[in-house]
């Protein structure tokens, strides 16, 4: 089965650029060979250039949503359009808004949505989505069986974003029907947390810490090394939940997926939910005092040792190199 039409639900960053995950999805959609439309919850003009460059023919844009959450609005709009345009496949990033839109559309069309995908292929008559389980040691391949558009949520960093050198996409208004009570939620304030240094999911090196650091103050060992290496600091959920560091630093299933060239894990056990967020890193260094810690199963260089001894000496040695 060839796919004729794919919709890619695209997201934007606070500064108005197209989110990397959306460019990744466009790259994959191009590979599948269909005509591609990007869907935007908001105005389309500012992003039509970038989306077109990455392969979208049209940008279906709702225009300003006036503080409404994208889930019900875009879900209802796409459900209506799907009746006349019958897309074969709709791709979403496994993100806050991506999940909401996919879930609303799934109910409106009464079709399932396959989640946590890291790959996608057309095999005979099937579209098959690969989902890692057990911390990425096993892959489950799931095919769609329902009539109608196939909805798939794809994890960030599953594909490489790549320009296709295309011209700007045509902006088409996506009509949002009355969503009634379902669409009654309104955003009244947006808080953007300040960031310094490289962004966690874009950084070339990530230094991450876990409960093995012992206490909140010791996160300075991780932060210090990150500063020395020009890296982004990361964390496990255990220390985010404990309030040592903000959620924005969390790596893993419920946090960021990172694929840096180097990932340094300090005092991290390597729980499956953490591994799915960093296992794709090119080189992994782990420091843990327990030789049985699962993190060593994915490490290229594993140091069985105490972070309180190894990290300060490492910092000193790097300092000495200047």
């Amino acid at each position, binding site marked *: 089965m060839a796919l004729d039409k794919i919709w890619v639900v695209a997201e934007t960053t606070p500064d108005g650029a197209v989110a990397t995950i959306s460019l990744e999805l466009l790259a994959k959609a191009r590979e599948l060979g269909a005509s591609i439309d990007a869907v935007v919850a908001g105005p389309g003009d500012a992003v039509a250039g970038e989306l077109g460059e990455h392969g979208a023919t049209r940008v279906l844009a709702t225009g300003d949503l006036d503080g409404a959450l994208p889930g019900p609005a875009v*879900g209802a709009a796409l459900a209506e359009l799907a009746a006349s345009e019958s897309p074969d496949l709709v791709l979403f990033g496994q993100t*806050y808004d991506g999940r909401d839109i996919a*879930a609303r559309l799934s109910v409106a069309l009464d079709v399932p949505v396959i989640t946590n995908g890291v790959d996608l292929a057309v095999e005979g008559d099937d579209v098959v989505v690969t989902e890692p389980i057990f911390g990425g040691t*096993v*892959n489950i391949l799931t095919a769609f*069986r*329902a009539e109608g558009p196939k909805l798939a949520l794809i994890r960030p960093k599953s594909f490489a974003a790549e320009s296709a050198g295309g011209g700007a996409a045509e902006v088409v208004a996506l009509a949002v029907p009355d969503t009634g009570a379902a669409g009654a939620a309104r955003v009244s304030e947006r*808080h953007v947390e300040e960031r310094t240094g490289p962004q966690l999911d874009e950084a070339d090196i990530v230094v991450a810490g876990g409960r093995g650091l012992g206490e909140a103050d010791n996160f300075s060992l991780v932060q210090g090394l990150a500063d020395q290496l020009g890296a982004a600091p990361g964390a496990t959920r255990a220390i985010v939940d404990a309030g040592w560091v903000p959620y924005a630093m969390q790596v893993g299933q419920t946090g960021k997926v990172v694929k840096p060239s180097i990932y340094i894990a300090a005092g991290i056990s390597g729980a499956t939910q953490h591994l799915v967020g960093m296992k794709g890193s090119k080189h992994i260094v782990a420091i843990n005092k327990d030789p049985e810690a699962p993190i060593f*199963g994915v490490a290229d260089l594993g140091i069985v040792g105490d972070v309180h001894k190894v990290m300060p000496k490492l910092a000193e040695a790097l300092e000495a190199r200047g």
Partner: protein
Amino acid sequence: MKVVVCVKQIPDPANPGALDPNTHLLVRDDKLILDESDSYGVEMALQLVEAAGGGSVHLVSMAPRSETSGLRTALAMGAEDAVLVSDDALAGSDALSTAKVLAKAVERYSPDLVLAGTESSDGYTGTVPEQVAALLGWPSLGFAKKIDVADGTVTVERQTDAGYDVVSAPTPCLATVTAGVVEPRYPSFKGIMAAKKKPVDEVGLGDLGLEGVGGANSGQATVKVEEAPAREAGEIIEDEGEAHLRIVEFLEGLKAI
């Protein structure tokens, strides 16, 4: 104020079970426990009802084999009662089927607010709650790290990539809570004893008037289960005071420094 919490009962993650090679279903033979992801919803519901100066917390759960151990934990924390949907036909349900079942169960209570986890520990589709809200025709406030209810309006701080948004919706609505938003209380001995007597209304698909759900009607099918390519075994060394130098060397080799 009446709050319903969707609580999933799952195999103990410390003992994760395995996939049946023939049916591709997770084999979960052991007793099920309350998903930790949902203990936050239960605690949040109890706190919101307290803050509102009165009301009740109810539970809905879909689980195999009339399983109630996880529900008992949530009842011991302070929830009043529960609807448990258990039906052999529900084995192998996808998220949409699960949502249809939960939405029907929620309707039995006509609550002001439904709470769920952002994602379950074993299924982690993260789509069930939003689907429940869609089926009920309600607004939903996902990824809440803080919830306030006042004058029929629910206001949350919704986690975003950049920080958080303040979002409000009128009741009835649904919200999902992220892990760690509140500290789930440990059930007291008295709570545990009381929980044994709290009503759990077990219903099947017929009782809910639902058709077309469950594994046989799933719109998705597992076609293959395969080992993921393993990472090549790395070099593991014991620190005897000099291991940091090996890290420096490693970083140099990669031209990172």
